[in-house]
């Protein structure tokens, strides 16, 4: 066993306190992820409620509307991530507010994904 290992390890420890990272890029990732999750449920609900939307989302017939619902939501998530990351690059934003909006999208997305609730919204 190498007796110098602990010294080597501690020498490799990153001195994080010296590098303050602006949170813009991370805020963009968090908010867009919340929006992406919400988009999955929203598109699923719309596809379930309107036959025309369901038909539109039928990108790949064997999988049915689920293919379009998820592909579109992923595209929305990634585009939003890129746009926000460019807009907020190098900036420091109030993470409390960003988190609150992201959690709201995530929470509403979770509730909307629950079939009894989405059925209730559709009056089924």
């Amino acid at each position, binding site marked *: 066993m190498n007796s110098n290992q602990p010294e080597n*390890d*501690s020498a*490799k*420890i*990153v001195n*994080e*306190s010296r*590098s303050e*990272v602006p*949170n813009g*890029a*991370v805020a963009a*990732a*968090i908010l*867009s*992820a*919340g929006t*992406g*999750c919400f988009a*999955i*449920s929203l598109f*699923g609900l719309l596809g379930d409620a309107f036959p025309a939307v369901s038909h539109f989302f039928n990108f*790949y017939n*064997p*999988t*049915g509307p*689920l*293919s379009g*619902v*998820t592909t579109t*939501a*992923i595209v929305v*998530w990634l585009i939003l991530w890129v746009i926000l990351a460019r807009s907020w690059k190098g900036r420091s934003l109030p*993470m*409390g507010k*960003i*988190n609150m909006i*992201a*959690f709201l999208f*995530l929470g509403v*997305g*979770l509730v909307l*994904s*629950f*079939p*009894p609730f989405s059925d209730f919204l559709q009056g089924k």
Partner: protein
Amino acid sequence: MQMSFREILTLLHGMGFGGLLLLAFSGALIQFYRIFSPHRSSPLTVWEQKLLRIYLIAMAVLAWGTVLSGAYVVYPWYRAHPPEGFTDYTGYPQRILLSSSTTAGWHSLGMEWKEHVAWFAPIALTMVAYVIIKYGSGLSRHRQVRNAAFAFALVAFIAASIAGVFGALINKNAPVQGGAVIKLMEGTK
């Protein structure tokens, strides 16, 4: 002992990707505690940070593998419609479930929920992996970012659990079967 081609791929989707992902959450929880705790005794070394990044990227890859194999390999077999006038629903799991009021809920609640909520996991885990890569163990000093990463990881776990539990129970009630039969072992009487 034999399995059909569809059973093997369903196993790969559920136990290979999905099962491994669920197991990986326990390891992630411990690592999260190590880097998130402001009372930790020593910061992560460069090697430990690298390992954590690889671990989280692997979790995100497993999550994507689970939903993509589910939606584009297993789900088409599950939702396949039998030809007109066909009354034997063997090989048509969705039809089997919907043919009885005692099993219809496995589709109308279980599959309808699982097929959407499962996608929360790869989106959330991709974000969490990105945040950890960006901040590393320095995340312990950014409470708000840390809270967001933990909350999304928790939702990813919940989503993966919902999908995993319903997937197993649905497949128990109406198994995905069919395709070439592969003999795994010669049995003895």
